[in-house]
């Protein structure tokens, strides 16, 4: 029992269960999943479907964070990939042609890969701090996405493209299938092969892992490329779901949600360890939180307040210093003199 309680996925799972419980109480038939027109319908399916892009982006982010880095540019990559795919499809003579859509998807994903490689090179070859290296693309990428769409919202009317984010396959929403595939592949590559170990080694200590014979540069480039690819797929899903590309708003703040999902899932921002299951849980918590806020009738503009609350609580719970100070005997009470300091702070500026 105590071993179970100490498992690092217990807290995120408990939070998710609590959120679902709130929904069960407030919404009738929340847990019911029906088959209508050969498709699965239900609130739980919706949470998975709308959470799919976030899960994907967060998966990529997990590996980046496991190497001790961070990728702020994923939101921009989401916008760019959606914009490029929609631009190409809107230029097709027949928007329904499968070949044309596949080509557009391939080009968009290739660009996302290239952007990921760019981030990886900045971090590994030039040695720029990851926050800053990816900040460049975060700032410039929005402009790039706007440039692709020419500042307009490109709408497309293409059945094959719609499938990616809004369609169904084998009764399941296609987005969920994509996520499952990527998740399985990632889990296999990192947990069945040595790749996960290498990533954790680089995150633990890049220099030591290099001395131990790991090509840390290659590992770094790979994780940023993977994050770029995941963001690219997520961008396709988001733009396909609404059949349009908005360079300005697509994927806005998704990098922050993704980082949050990873942190909630128990992956430490300092790197060296990661949990894919935790990330999926974290992303589901964020999506369920959004759904909950809508379903229990709290005004949606307070979503951010709840998020702030969740971030703070989760981070405090994970902070060793916090647990030491609060849960154990207060050996050394915080040595601050808050009231006096705060006044002093305001004056100099």
């Amino acid at each position: 029992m105590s071993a179970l309680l100490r498992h690092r996925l217990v807290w995120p799972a408990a939070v998710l269960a609590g959120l679902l419980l709130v929904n069960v109480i407030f919404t009738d038939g929340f847990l019911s999943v029906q088959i209508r027109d050969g498709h699965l319908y239900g609130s739980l399916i919706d949470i998975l479907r709308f959470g799919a892009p976030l899960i994907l982006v967060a998966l990529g982010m997990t590996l980046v964070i496991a190497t001790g880095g961070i990728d702020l540019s994923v939101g921009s990559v989401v916008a760019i990939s959606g914009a490029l795919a929609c631009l190409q499809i809107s230029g097709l003579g027949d928007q329904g042609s499968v070949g044309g859509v596949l080509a557009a998807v391939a080009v968009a994903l290739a660009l996302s890969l290239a952007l990921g490689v760019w981030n990886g090179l900045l971090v590994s070859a030039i040695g720029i701090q990851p926050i800053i290296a990816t900040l460049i693309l975060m700032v410039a990428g929005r402009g790039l996405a706007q440039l692709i769409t020419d500042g307009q919202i490109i709408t497309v009317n293409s059945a094959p493209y719609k499938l990616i984010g809004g369609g169904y396959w084998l009764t399941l929403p296609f987005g969920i299938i994509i996520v499952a595939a990527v998740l399985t592949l990632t889990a296999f590559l990192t947990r069945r092969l040595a790749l996960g170990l290498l990533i954790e080694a680089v995150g633990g200590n890049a220099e030591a892992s290099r001395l131990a014979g790991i090509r840390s540069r290659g590992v770094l480039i790979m994780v940023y490329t993977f994050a770029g690819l995941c963001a690219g797929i997520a961008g396709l899903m988001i733009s396909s779901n609404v059949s349009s590309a908005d360079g300005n708003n697509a994927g806005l703040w998704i990098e922050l949600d993704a980082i949050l999902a990873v942190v909630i899932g128990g992956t430490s921002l300092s790197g060296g360890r990661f949990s894919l299951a935790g990330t999926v849980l974290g992303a589901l918590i964020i999506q369920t939180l959004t759904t909950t806020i809508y379903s229990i009738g709290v005004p949606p503009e307070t979503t951010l307040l709840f998020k702030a609350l969740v971030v703070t609580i989760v981070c405090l719970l994970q902070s060793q210093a916090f647990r030491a100070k609060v849960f154990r005997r207060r050996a050394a009470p915080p040595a601050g003199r808050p009231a006096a300091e705060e006044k002093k702070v305001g004056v100099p500026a």
Partner: protein
Amino acid sequence: MSVESTAGGRLKAPVRIPQKFVPVLVTAALFVAMFAAGGVRYEGFATGQIVLNVFIDNAFLLVVAVGMTFVILAGGIDLSVGSVVALSTMIAATLLKDGWPSPPVIGLVLLIGTLLGTGMGAIIHYFEIQPFIVTLGGMFLARGLSYTIGTESIPIEQPTFTAFAQTRIDLFADLWISPSVLIAAVVVAVAAYVLHYTRLGRNVYAVGGGEQSALLMGLPLARTKIAVYGISGFCSALGGVLMSFYMLSGYGMHAVGMELDAIAAVVIGGTLLTGGSGYLLGTVLGVLVLGLIQTVISFEGTLSPWWTRIVIGLLLFVFILLQRLITARRR
């Protein structure tokens, strides 16, 4: 760094620029070059008023970037500034609409900003959580609070605020500035004094240079770290007040992404993101460069406004590369 060894250096006068000034000088050169190029290319560009207009349109960004400079010099980062600006405009607009006089409104806004910043600083220091995540939480909190106050834009019609918005302070010739520029200038002057001539300022550099060493030297680590976030919170709130002068409205969507502009201005100004090295003057130049980019793009006319972001991204890249070269050489 470079020591002039020869006493008879008058003839040759080897002008060696200390390496620590290089990034600031590069930014200054870039600004002058952009200004000159603009003057050659566009009619009516190379006037003093163009520079002053950059200040007028970016006074709030300048104040926010000053606060960000403190945080980055101390080796941290503050993502909450844009949201705190929005929250400040929202609180100010709401209270003014309820008939509050302006001095207590401004005082309250500044107090809330400072408290928010100090609180985040305390969490960062005492609970050892990364600044990135804590200020991300602060960002959600402040943005969420401003949406909770209201989702619509609230106009400000209070006479003091409109007076601040419309007053023109005439300088010599035909040049003029707004009162906000004056406030921003005072903030810059005070901040430069604090940073370069007081104990707190030296502590900020020391903490940014190496937290462990600063602690071992007996410097007040907790006080310094919490103070920089408090200063950043205060500056963001003041930036919010200046923005409500400029926009004459309070709105939860004001200043979206301003944290990026502020960080970009600080980096372009030559402050090392790892902390411990940089100058406030650099940040001022960084804001000027960002503002001038917008001016050039609006003068060009045919270029779409989103080129601004691409150019800022490119500049960031160039300046970060430059920083890498300088720190690599120093080693």
